[in-house]
């Protein structure tokens, strides 16, 4: 009898624990944020020094972005208020087009990175984000600072700051201007990114 009760209580408390635990067990830590960027950077370094053609590098870069960055929410944030009224399918095709556009735009800078590497230096938590600070060391150039901003909620990176310049902010301005040019039409904007 008491045995049954005990086992029931154990089961019950076990259930409670599994309900209550996720916020504790899954709390994203500073070392996890840094580990995420360490492996992203290792993949980026591998691509930079793979000797592949530029277009093959763009594709690899896009895959790394999808894996390590929260692209759907970055796309939504870059779109701004119009994202709220857009349909799910409009958002998903915009996200896809935006991903490709980002990979081509910044991938074309990769030529300058060939033979270079990115080093992870350390991580600082600021409110709900982790700022993972890196140094890019390129051939014949003074080293410069790159920061990956990892959000604790998605556990992926949501911004990249190069010498303090936020790519999220600059793409917000850029996509905003492109949306204006497209007369506020998201579908036209998506088509123009293709």
């Amino acid at each position, binding site marked *: 009898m008491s045995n049954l009760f005990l086992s029931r209580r154990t089961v019950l408390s076990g259930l409670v624990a599994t309900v209550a635990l996720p916020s504790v067990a899954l709390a994203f830590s500073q070392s996890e944020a840094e580990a995420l960027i360490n492996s992203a950077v290792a993949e980026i370094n591998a691509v930079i020094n793979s000797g592949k053609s530029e277009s093959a590098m763009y594709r690899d870069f896009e895959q790394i972005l999808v894996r390590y960055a929260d692209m759907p*929410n970055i796309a939504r*944030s870059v779109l701004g208020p119009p994202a709220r009224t857009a349909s799910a399918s409009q958002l998903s095709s915009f996200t896809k087009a935006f991903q490709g556009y980002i990979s081509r*735009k910044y991938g*074309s*800078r990769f030529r300058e990175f060939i033979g270079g590497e990115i080093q992870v230096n350390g991580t*600082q938590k*600021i*409110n*709900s*984000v982790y*700022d993972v600070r890196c140094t890019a060391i390129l051939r014949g150039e*003074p080293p410069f*600072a790159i920061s990956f*901003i990892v*959000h604790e*909620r*998605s556990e992926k990176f*949501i*911004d990249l*700051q190069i*010498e*303090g*310049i*936020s790519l*999220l*902010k*600059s793409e917000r*301005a*850029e996509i*905003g*201007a*492109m949306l*204006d*040019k497209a007369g506020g039409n998201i579908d036209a904007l998506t088509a123009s990114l293709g």
Partner: protein
Amino acid sequence: MLKPVVLFVSAALLGLAGCAAPVANGVNDPYEEVNRGWHETNIALDKGLVDPVSTAYGTVVPDPLRKGLSNVSDTLSIPGTVVNDVLQFQLGDALHNTARFAVNATVGLAGLFDPATSMGLEERDSDFGETLHTWGVGEGAYVVLPLYGPSTERDAVGLIVDIALNPVGHLLDSPESDYATGLKVADLADTRYRYSDLYESVLYDSADSYSQMRLSYLDNRRFNLGMPVSTVETDETQGGATYDIYEDFYE
């Protein structure tokens, strides 16, 4: 000779201090209309003059020589940086830069080479705009200067003071001072040529190059002045604001 400049500058500074409500984040651009006008002019100048001249310079003059001339220009700018290091009480930087100057001016064959960097005496730039920042002057409004490009009210004043304060400018008579100016122009042309893809993608391929330049300049300038990073934990109103854009990211 120096007096009118100093007078003008102190007048400008007083004016600045009066309206120097420090804007730590965001964009303060009340002169946008005028600024956009200068931005267009600068782009036209780039297209018609700066780009072709730097392309010619980059094509005709071999890379090592261009690099050497840029090094000389950098070396000539060090004494001015030391003056600013002292004014900011950054005596460590003042010594660092003095040693850098001594090494590159001698072993580096009058600045043609840069052996100092490999000795741990890397470039540590500064300017009077930064000096004003350490003295507590806010950046003021964003301005686009003719030819020079993006700046702020504070940094524009700093630029004028740097020209007036530069010891090298006072030591050299013409024609040597003209050579120094020529080297500065060569250095700018080399930068324009070396990073032509980057310049062109911002200036000519973006939907609104004006706001891209404005954002990049302000973000980068604040980063170099150490505003966003180091003040985060101690001063919430200043540095914390940089990370505010991430707080409402998942709404």
